[in-house]
C-alpha cells in the first residue's frame, strides 16, 4: 500500500493496486482526467517525492517536457511506495457515483449496424452512473483496458450496456466481437467521464453523434426523456454516417415516450455518391453542417452533447463556437 500526499490541498490517501488518479477519484477527489488510458494528458501531475511506474508501457500522452519536469500521467501512474505530488484538484472532475472495479458477465449481444454491436453486461456488484459516462472494459486475453460509453441509464447500476464499433484489426474489439460469448466475463471499472446529462440545464437538448458516439448519445436521450426536470424540453438527435448502412439510432429513440412530438431524429450521410447510397432520401452532409442548417442561431440556446470520431468532434466544436454556444453548454469527452 502506498500513501499519496498532495501538500497544497492538505490531502493524503491510500493507493493500492491502482493508479494514482483512479484511486483519488474512487474516494471522491476532483483529480483532473479525461481519457483514462494514457492518451489525452489531462491527468498530468508533478512528482515531488517518491517513485512511480506506468500501467501502460510508454503511454502516448507523455511528452519530452513531462520527462524533464518529472510530470506523470495520473491515470497510468502506479506508485512504488509513498509519493508526494503536485496537482490542482477541481470540482469539475469529482464523481457523483464513485468509480469502482467490478466484473461484468455478458448476458446479451446484438448487432445495431454492420459494424456496431450492443453488449450487455450484468455486474458482479452494482455500480451506478450518470447517463453519458463511460466505463473501462478489460477484455479476455487483451492487455490494458479500453474506454467505452454506456448506452443505458445507470440509476441502479445493475447492468451496463455498450454500443461498440468494431475497429478493424483492433485487439479489444476483435476479442469482444469474435470471441466473447454469453456467460463470459470482462473486467469493468467506472463509471468515469464528465460528458453526462445535465438535468438542471434549462434548455433544449441537441445530441450529435457519429460512429460509436452513438452509445453515450442514446444514453443521454434515454435519461433526458424520462427526467421530470426536462419534461418540457425538446430532444434533438442527429446521427451521421458515411453511407445509409452506417445510419442508426432512431430505433432507440422510437421506444421513448415523446418520440415524434418532443423527441426528434435526423439521420445523415456524408458520401451520397457512393453506389450504396443510391435511393437515400434523407439529409446529406456532416453532422456539424446539418446542425447549423437546421438550428442556425438557435444553437446558442441549446445544451449540446456530442460524441464521435476526433475529426467529427473537432468540426462540431468549431461550429458550436462559431454559433456562440457557451463552453458550459458543450459536453463531450475531451480525449485529445
Amino acid at each position, binding site marked *: 500500500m502506498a500513501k499519496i500526499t498532495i501538500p497544497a490541498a492538505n490531502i493524503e490517501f491510500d493507493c493500492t493496486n491502482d493508479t494514482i488518479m483512479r484511486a483519488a477519484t474512487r474516494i471522491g477527489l476532483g483529480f*483532473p482526467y*479525461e481519457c483514462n488510458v494514457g492518451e489525452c*494528458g*489531462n491527468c498530468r501531475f508533478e512528482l515531488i517525492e517518491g517513485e512511480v511506474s506506468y500501467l501502460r508501457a510508454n503511454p502516448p500522452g507523455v511528452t519530452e517536457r513531462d520527462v524533464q519536469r518529472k510530470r506523470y500521467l495520473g491515470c497510468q501512474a502506479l506508485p512504488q511506495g509513498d509519493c508526494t505530488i503536485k496537482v490542482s484538484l477541481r470540482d469539475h*472532475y469529482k464523481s457523483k457515483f464513485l468509480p469502482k472495479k467490478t466484473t461484468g458477465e455478458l448476458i446479451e449481444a446484438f448487432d445495431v449496424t454492420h459494424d456496431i454491436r450492443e453488449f450487455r453486461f450484468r455486474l458482479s456488484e452494482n455500480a451506478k452512473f450518470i447517463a453519458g459516462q463511460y466505463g473501462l472494459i478489460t477484455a479476455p486475453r487483451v492487455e490494458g483496458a479500453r474506454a467505452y460509453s454506456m448506452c443505458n441509464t445507470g440509476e441502479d447500476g445493475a447492468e451496463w450496456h455498450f454500443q461498440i464499433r468494431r475497429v478493424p484489426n483492433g485487439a479489444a474489439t476483435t476479442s469482444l466481437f469474435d470471441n466473447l460469448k454469453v456467460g463470459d466475463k470482462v473486467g469493468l471499472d467506472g463509471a468515469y467521464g464528465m460528458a453526462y446529462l445535465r438535468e438542471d440545464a434549462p434548455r433544449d437538448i441537441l445530441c450529435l453523434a457519429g460512429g460509436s458516439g452513438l452509445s453515450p448519445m442514446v444514453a443521454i436521450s434515454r435519461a433526458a426523456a424520462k427526467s421530470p426536470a426536462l419534461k418540457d424540453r425538446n430532444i434533438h438527435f442527429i446521427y451521421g454516417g458515411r453511407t445509409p448502412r452506417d445510419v442508426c439510432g432512431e430505433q432507440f429513440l422510437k421506444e421513448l415516450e415523446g418520440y415524434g412530438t418532443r423527441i426528434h431524429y435526423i439521420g445523415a450521410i456524408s458520401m451520397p455518391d457512393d453506389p450504396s447510397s443510391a435511393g437515400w432520401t434523407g439529409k446529406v452532409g456532416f453532422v456539424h453542417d446539418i446542425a447549423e442548417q437546421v438550428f442556425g442561431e438557435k444553437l446558442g440556446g441549446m445544451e449540446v452533447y456530442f460524441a464521435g470520431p476526433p475529426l467529427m468532434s473537432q468540426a462540431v466544436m468549431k461550429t458550436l*463556437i462559431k454559433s456562440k454556444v457557451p*463552453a458550459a453548454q458543450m459536453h463531450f469527452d475531451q480525449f485529445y
Partner: protein
Amino acid sequence: MSVSAQKIELCKTSDVAEGSAIKVETGDLSLAVFNLNGAFYVMDDTCSHGPGSLSEGPICGDVVECDFHNGAFNIKTGEIVEPPCMIPQKTYKVAVESETVFIEV
C-alpha cells in the same frame, strides 16, 4: 465603466516580474496575471481546453503556451494562437492604481 462594474484587487505590481505570470485565486475566479513590459493583463488561469494552468506556461512575446497540450493564447486578447485549444480564453479589463492590480468585472 458601467455603473455595476466591480473592482477586484488581485496583487501588487511588484508580485509579478516582467515577462512572467502568477496565479491569483479570488472568490470563484482562478486567474493568471501577466506582466508584459510593465503592462498587466489578466485571463482565466485554467486553459479553455483542459486542466492546464496558464500562469505556469512559457511566455513568448504576447503569447502564452499551455504546458499541458501546447496550445497557445494571445495574452492581451485571449485569442487562440495555436491549437488544440478551440475556445478563446476569457480575459479581463485591468486597472492599475497605487501599484496594485485590479480587474473590473
